[in-house]
């Protein structure tokens, strides 16, 4: 069976700068793949290509074995690939429900209600509460403005929203970098639950402890190439740091 998401020989250059020089990797459904590397290793570029924000110079993105060229973030989203960027893209003064449903609002039944776009506020609130509870996200009041949530809750809301509306792949960019220890733990738990629902998760992170705790495998990028793919007992902080810094020679394919 073909993996949920795969990239083959992906290259991207900006003018003369080679950001990606032929990267291949894959993520299975129900797996968390860590994506690590130093600044400039190509993580952000890969994320941009996968989320449809930029087009690759060459190479293929395969979703369930089918070539998928995302012309825009919306196209990636429609294909089942959701991205949570570091800035979370939440509307601060809008409440949890409005953010959760942003772009996918539930309309009340009836011809006239649909014509005017009348929102089914109660159903939306109930659905939000249900989804947050299912992922065991602790947000006591869904009518709170999102800027009044804690950092961990905002991250959890963004991840839960992405997970709720995507069926296949979730791309996470540094989800724990701005959080306290306890909130980091909660976000990692949430990532595990999303994975257990059968979603393929690609986790971009600088935090080695997080990668070790939550990732099933990790790909190390260095200078636009895959330096190593680590799993099982090979996935330890010594190897991660070694391949990231280049102290250990890569398999470089």
């Amino acid at each position, binding site marked *: 069976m073909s993996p949920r998401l795969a990239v083959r020989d992906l290259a991207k250059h900006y003018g003369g700068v080679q950001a990606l020089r032929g990267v291949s990797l894959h993520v299975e459904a129900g797996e968390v793949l860590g994506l690590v590397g130093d600044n400039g290793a190509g993580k952000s570029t890969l994320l941009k290509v996968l989320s449809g924000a930029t087009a690759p110079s060459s190479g293929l993105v395969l979703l369930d074995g089918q070539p998928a060229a995302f012309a825009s973030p919306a196209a990636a989203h429609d294909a089942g690939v959701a991205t949570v*960027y570091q800035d979370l893209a939440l*509307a601060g*003064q*809008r409440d949890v429900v409005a953010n959760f449903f942003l772009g996918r609002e539930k309309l009340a039944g009836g011809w006239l209600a649909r014509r*005017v*776009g009348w929102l089914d506020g109660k159903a939306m609130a109930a659905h939000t509460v249900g989804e947050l509870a299912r992922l065991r996200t602790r947000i*006591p009041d869904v009518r709170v403005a999102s800027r*009044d949530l804690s950092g961990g809750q905002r991250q959890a809301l963004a991840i839960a929203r992405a997970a709720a509306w995507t069926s296949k792949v979730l791309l996470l960019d540094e989800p724990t970098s701005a959080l306290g220890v306890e909130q980091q733990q909660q976000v990692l738990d949430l990532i595990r639950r999303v994975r257990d629902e059968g979603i393929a998760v690609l986790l971009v992170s600088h935090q080695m402890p997080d990668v070790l705790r939550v990732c099933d495998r990790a790909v190390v990028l260095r200078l636009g190439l895959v330096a190593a793919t680590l799993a099982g007992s090979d996935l330890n902080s010594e190897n991660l740091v070694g391949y990231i810094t280049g102290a250990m020679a890569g398999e470089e394919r």
Partner: protein
Amino acid sequence: MAGLTTEQDADREQSARALLRRGHALVRDLWIGGVLLALVIGFSIGSPYFLTRANWLNTSSTATEVLLLAVGETFVICSAGIDLSVGAVLGFAGTAGAWVMATAFPGAGGAATWPVIVGFAAAVAAGGAFGLVNGFLIAWGGIPPFVVTLGTLGIATGFGYLLNNGQEISAIPPSVVTFGNTNLGGWVPVPVLIAAVITIWCGLLLAKTRFGAYTLSIGDSREAVIRAGINYRRYLLRIYTLSGLLAGVAAVLVMARLGAGSPASGATDNLNAIAAVVIGGASLFGGRGSVVGSVIGTGIIAVMLTGLVLINVPPFWQEVAVGAILILAVYIDQLRYRKTRSN
């Protein structure tokens, strides 16, 4: 368990903060409502003519045009934009409507129906057309709303004067005036009724529909809206078109009240409308605002305009008073907001 207690404490604290924030919104609505009430009470003590039918009719018809502009402006400001052109568009749309009636149906009789309908439709369409142009240039041209609408303010003003060499057009069917000065039960002028119905409809549109939700979200975080895959340009186009259409409707009501299309009508209304919206609690940075607030804001301005005349204050002080209230309202709002935040 210690961990559980801190979590519960955090939850409690968050709910308290949320309540405080909601309380803050309620308090500010009550506060500006209180200002309106205080003005009404003050003016009725200051002048025996304030609480009369004549003054109600005068105040409400003054308020009507500002109200319709303010309602459109509410959507624009909630989307983090500004529409400076509404007053000029009102003047142009009214003149255009009158021009159509005078040119296409010269000498139409007193009971003429079709010329009136066509003329009104032309005025509303003229307003909508300016709104479309504004929206298109802002959404697709990427030109800042301030610049675009300042430009169309000038263009609309110029077009209005060009239609009849700067003169108003009064050769319109008398039935227009009949329509504009009909009172239901002696207390409810038809223009006021029309404005009220449109205002309620727009209030629901902003608070209860997807269009309203997107208007607020675009103003709050355009980035979030784009990432959610929403075609925000289409919504910006609709928002500015709505503002233009409402300026067109306001033009019809003004024309019906005065019996002429005048390019100069509405010249200062744009600033009054913006002031009304901001006094009503909308944030100029977008994401926050309500039609109810704008109605109260319009009420404050209208009461000031007519009340000051009744207590024999020279009319030039009106502008001064509106400006001062505007600054005060925003200042107090910021003060309260900072308090809520630091708590």
